[in-house]
Structures are given as C-alpha cells and as structure tokens.
C-alpha cells in the first residue's frame, strides 16, 4: 500500500519504508483487533442480553501479559526506526558537496565550482552531501521522495544531510519549518539526471554567459531577481507585501529613515545598490527593520546593473 503510493528515489527509502511497514502493520492488527473485541463486548454484554453483571476485580497475570507483549513489540518498532535512521548521520567521504542557502522565502543551491541555481541538479547514483545554511530564521529541507528532512538553523553552519539519488526525475523539495508569510511558496525542485548529462550541465559554465548575451539586459535582470526570490516580498503591481513594491520605484521620491532621522531621497542607481547591499541603512517608511538581509556576496556588480535596468522598466 504505502510503497506503491509514494515515490522511492534514494538509498534511505528502504530503511524508512520498512520501519513504516513494521510499525503500521502491528498497529493496524491491534487497532482492528481491539476495536472488534470492544464492539463484541458492547454487543454481547448489552443490558438486554446480559442484565446481571459479573464482578471481576482484575487479574495480575493479564496485567503482566499486556505489559510485556506491547513492551516487546515497541522495542521491535524502536529497532527498525533506529536502523533506518542511523545511516542518515554518516555521509561517505567521496560525497559531492552542495551548499543550500535558505532565506525567507527561497532556497539557492551553490556548487563547488561556483554555480548557483534555484533547482537542485543532481547526478544519479552519486552520494550527495548538502551543507545547510540558514540566513534569517529556521528553515527545513524536505525531499519526500528521498525520505530525508533536516532543519537549517541560523548560526549553526555545520548541519548537513546526505543521500544517494537512485531514480531519474523531478522531485519536490519543500521548506517544512514554518518561516513566515510565504512559507508555503518556499519550495523548489530536485532534478536527478544520468551522471553524463549532469556532468555536461555542471561543466558548462558558458551556459549562463551565453544566454545573457542573447537576452536583453532587462530580461536578464528579471531572471536574476526571479532566481534569488525578490518577488516573494516585493510586488510588481503596486500591492504592499513584506517590502515596498517595485512598481514606479525607479526615479521616485521616497521618505526613508536613516540613522534615526527621516529624509527624502531619490531612488537612483546608488539608492538601489545600497538597498540591496545594506537593506537597513535607508529604511522606507512603513516597513520593518531586519526583514531583508544583505545580498552582498551573492550578487555581483554586473548583476546589480542588470537589476537596475529591469527596475527602470517597471513603471
């Protein structure tokens, strides 16, 4: 029942699903059995059929029996749970490492050669170790098809999870630790490829540059903003989300709080650069401090220029 229902795509599936089967199998037998016995007693010893109760105080022997048997059974369950879980803490030395950066409300995946993506591309049958970094609040990486989940806690940068993808395909990756407004939109995809296809994708560092040449500067700006998740908090249509809207932003006059005092500034190139690298330095009136973190190190100077080009068109 369970096995056919949910995709099995990693080395941990067998251990986890075995534990499911053992625990749920024993549970169903007991649930059905006890319910049947209870219903039978209710029927058989109904006042109509059994007007005079027979008093029984208890039975020490029975108490011992139904203490010991469940005790043995739960120890069996514990064992399977432990056995399926134990290997999750021991990544092999040759695992490919990918850094997962979680922030409100998107994940970014950074490869060892510097590639950054918003979809987790992985080679099939290769051990993968994800190093988990949360920038603001606690998030959690959950890939149901792989049966893995690990919280990422800000300030604890040594947390990791590992697995071996064993099936080609596209699988969901969710954030499962509640993290605020757009928690339910914080999900990405894992794409598992044959190792050759993966290697081609991985070593093709020209892909991004090439596409950037073809596409216009505004389209590139939009693509960058999409991939780092700007639009989760900043709307394009004038509505107020977590942060101010982008509509009509470029060139407008804005009242900001800077170093405790209010002033009016024009949203020019310099303003936008500062807003991305030091979000709290000039805080737009009506929006909270500390909600946006700096993108310094994640965006290059060229990226900023492309973003500015795009923002000019959002009027």
């Amino acid at each position: 029942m369970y096995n056919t229902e949910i995709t099995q795509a990693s080395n941990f599936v067998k251990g986890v699903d075995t534990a499911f089967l053992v625990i749920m199998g024993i549970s169903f037998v007991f649930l059905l059995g006890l319910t049947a016995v209870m219903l039978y007693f209710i029927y058989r010893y109904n006042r109509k059929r059994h007007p005079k109760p027979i008093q029984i105080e208890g039975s020490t022997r029975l108490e011992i029996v139904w203490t010991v048997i469940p005790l043995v059974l739960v120890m069996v369950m514990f064992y399977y749970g432990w056995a399926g879980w134990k290997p999750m803490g021991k990544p092999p030395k040759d695992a490919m490492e990918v850094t997962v950066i979680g922030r409100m409300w998107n994940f970014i995946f950074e490869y060892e050669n510097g590639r950054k993506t918003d979809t987790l591309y992985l080679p099939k049958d290769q051990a993968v170790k994800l190093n988990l970094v949360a920038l603001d609040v606690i998030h959690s990486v959950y890939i149901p098809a792989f049966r893995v989940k690990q919280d990422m806690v800000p300030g604890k940068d040594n947390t990791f999870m590992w697995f071996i993808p064993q099936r080609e395909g596209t699988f969901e990756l969710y954030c499962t630790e509640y993290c605020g407004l757009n928690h339910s939109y914080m999900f990405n995809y894992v794409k598992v490829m044959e190792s050759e296809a993966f290697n081609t994708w991985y070593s093709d560092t020209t892909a991004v540059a090439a596409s950037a040449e073809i596409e216009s500067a505004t389209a590139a700006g939009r693509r960058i903003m999409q991939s780092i998740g700007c639009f989760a908090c900043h709307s394009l249509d004038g509505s107020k989300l977590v942060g101010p809207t982008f509509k009509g932003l470029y060139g407008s006059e804005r009242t900001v709080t800077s170093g405790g005092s209010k002033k009016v500034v024009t949203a020019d190139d310099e303003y936008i650069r500062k807003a991305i690298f030091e979000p709290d330095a000039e805080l737009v009136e009506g929006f909270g401090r500390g909600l946006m973190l700096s993108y310094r190190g994640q965006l290059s100077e060229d990226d900023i220029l492309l973003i500015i080009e795009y923002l000019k068109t959002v009027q």
Partner: protein
Amino acid sequence: MQESQSAIQASYLRTPGRFKGFLGWVTSTDHKRIGLLYLYSIATMFFVGMLLGLAMKLELVAPGKTLMEARDYNATFTVHGVIMIFMVVIPGLPAVFGNFLLPLMIGARDVAFPRINLLSWYFYVAGVVLILIALLFGPGTPDTGWTFYAPYSFKTGTNMLPAIFGAFILGFSSILTGLNFIVTIHRMRAPGMGWMKLPMFAWTLYGTAWIQLLATPVVGITLVLVALERLFGIGVFDPALGGDPILYQHLFWIYSHPAVYIMILPAMGAVSEIIPTFAQKQLFGYKALILSTMAIAFVGYLVWGHHMFTAGMSGTAQYAFSLLTFLVAIPSAIKVFNWISTMYKGSINMQTPFYWAASFIFVFMIGGFSGLVLGSLATNIHVHDTGFVVAHFHYIVFGGVGYSFMAAIHYWFPKIYGRMYDSHWANIGWILFFVGFVSLYTPMFWLGMKGMPRRYYDYLPEFHGANILSTFGSWILAMGFIVIVFNLIRAARSGPPVGPNPWNGKTMEWMVPSPPPVENFEEIPVVGENDGPYNYE
C-alpha cells in the same frame, strides 16, 4: 419529582450569596460555581477556536487563494493553536470537572484554597483578554504558530508581546489550580477514604496537578526570555547575538510535551469513571490504572526531544528520546486494555456518555498508534512537520480530550444542573461529530505521508482530493457540535428534573442531591471498610 424541583431551588445554582446574578457568580469561591465559570469561558473560547479552524479548512478546500491571504492564514492557525491549547485543552477537564467534582468525589466541602481557586479563574480571564488584545489591536495578529519558535518570533513585526504575556498569565492560572488540587487531595479526603479508595478521576487530577505545578514555570520563564529578547536583544535565543534557537525549542517542549499529559490524564480519568458506571461493573485493574497514570506523569517529562528529531540534536540524544517515547506508550496501552476488560461480562447500558467513552477509546487508539510512527526515528524524519503530525495530535488532543470532555459533560450534566437532556438529539450530535471528526483528520495522515508539509497556505494540485474530504469533514463536525450545544443549553434551562443518581454511579458525588447544595454534604461522610468507588453488585 417534587423533591428534585426543591433540590434545584436549594442548590448552589440558586442560593444567593452577598451578591446576586452575575456578580454573585464572579465573586463566588464555591468550587462548583468556579467550575461552571470555567465551563462557560472555555466553551466560548472553543467556539472561537472552532470558527478559526473552519476558516482554515475552507481556505484549504482548493489550491490558491479561496478566502484569505497568506498573512491572514498564518495568523489564523496561530490564534487557533493558542486558543485551543492554552485556553481550551490545558485548563479543560481539570478546571471544569476537576473543580466541580473533586471535593464531591472525596467528601469535602470545597477545595483547600477557595479564594486562590477564584483567583486562578481571574488569571485565566486576564490571559484571554490580553491575547484577544494582541489579536485585534496593534501592528498585526501574531503569525508565529502557537509554538513561538525562535528566531522567527522576534523577527516578525506582529503584535507578539501581549500574546506572549497572555500565555504567561494563563500559566499562572494552571499552576494555582494544580497546587490547589494537590493540597486538596492530600488533606481533605473524607475519613476512611484511603488512597486506594480514591476514584480514578481524582487520581488522574493528582497526576496532572503535579505536572502543572512543576512544568508550567519552565514555559513561563521561556516566554519571558522571548519577550526580553524582543525588547532588549539579550541574545539568549538570537543566533545573530550568539544565542541558540535550539535552546528555545528544548525549553518550550520541556513544558509543552508534559502539557499533553496535563490534558490527557484527566480525560483518561473521566473515561475510567464512565465505563464502570454504564457497565455496572467494577473498574478492571484499578491498581494497574493508578500505576500507569503515575508512570505517564513521570515518563512524560522525559520525552520532549521527540519534537526535535530533525532539529539537529546529537545522535545519542535522538535515540534516547525515541526509546523513552516508546516506553511512554506502554502505560497508555495498559489503560486501553483495562477499559475494554471492564466491559467484559458487564451489563452495558447504551447511553450517550457511553457512546462518547467508547468512541474515545477508538480515536485515542488511532492517535496513540500514529504516535508510534512519530516516535520512531526513521519514520519521524519523513513525516515530521507534515499533515501527519497535525492529524496525530488532533486525534490525541481533540479526539482524546474532546471526546472525553463530551463524555464527561453528558455524564455529569444531571449532577451539575439537576436536569436531564434529550438523549435522542444527544446521540444524533454524537454520530455527526464522530463521522465529521474521522473524515476531517484521517485524510491528513495520508497527506503527510505523501509529503504535504503543515502550516501551508497553498499546496500542489496532487494534494487536492484529500483536502476536499477534510474540509467536508469539518462542516459535519461543526453541525454535530451545534446540535450537542443546543441540546444541552435547552436541557439546562428546561430539561426534566432528575434524582441524585440517574446512572446508578458509586462515587460520592452521586450520594448528594442533584444539583448539589452549596455546602455539598450536610455532614462529612465517613467511608466504610467495604465502600469503594466501584463497588457494583
């Protein structure tokens, strides 16, 4: 009949104190009146919480926006959780039935500290008002979930401080009730009532009271630390200041896991009273039930880590917590075996309270078995923070405590009001509630196994079908609840008067008139050698 009418006239419901009407109730230190004050306030809060729950289920009937924005949805599940946990199920049975029945059951005129008892109700009201203020005024309704996890709880711009302070004050209400019950049970039992003649409900109140007294201060301190963190940035939990968010989770669950046992122990106690009465048979394994109650109260302290298997604890801590979690399942199983055995060779009178008690056993078993899936390490990793967890704790907390509460109100209703309800409508209410309940929460188990995370405002199309079923269930359940409440309100006003002991119960509350007089017992009863709470013939 004449006698019953005059019992109502002479009872605690009518006899005037210094004040009349509303003032007479809110200044009364009579444990029975305080019990009813709690009943009315808790029922009101449950109704509010239920409306929020219905709104959430309506939002989830289809992917995308149905009724509200994500911000409102997040606030809704936060307020639903805070109301249901802190204002409904934690006070729940102890505050309502414990207050009303404990002195009656042990042959006392009141609890040990009647004024502190009234004070605890005022703390409850103050906490409720503060949290409602947080909800309605200020920069936005809290949106952290009832768990207030750091560091989100001091990053969010919403109105957290009044909510946290409200929960803090509710904690004091709980502590005072616990203290009161411990002293009452130790010092005020009638002559001859040894510990082994104490009714099970009183025993479970005793276990619960110790948890209230010892565990609640931990969450109080934790909430104060969150408030200080927000106000002054003291850096205990904030990683940006060198604090540890995981420490928050430990402190929070050190209270909030035992809190589950605060809720469930008296629920088990009430069922342990109801089954013997309707089977007219001695409670099977009385001593085993006492032992298992105390075992749950004790081991329940040591399992909080199972809420944090994915948080990044050390491996040793993980399997120690998993092992202890499996151990705490044993006393619960023992209780189920003993309840079912009590029915064996009884003479079962199929009345509304018994329907509730039997269905309690069924939903409690489902809640318990799904708890084994969550206690096991490998399976927990997969279903933690998914719909599976939501289904599990609603089966335990709403199924366990809710069904037992319903069983208790239908069982002790004639004692409380001296009148009887219409059992035909009561049974219709029960079946609607039961069918609604099962179709509301069972699909969530499946959703969780498929991988739908909890606290999700929106979901992928593949989860649609089960969510529709769940939403339908919520409507059926709400209909059942409305039938039950109307039936009881009508009965309290104009139901036919009943005698002191309509079910032929053997515990001492059935020896006094219904409703009981202000002083409970004209003379403090003496419990004889051969008397006992379950001495049926």
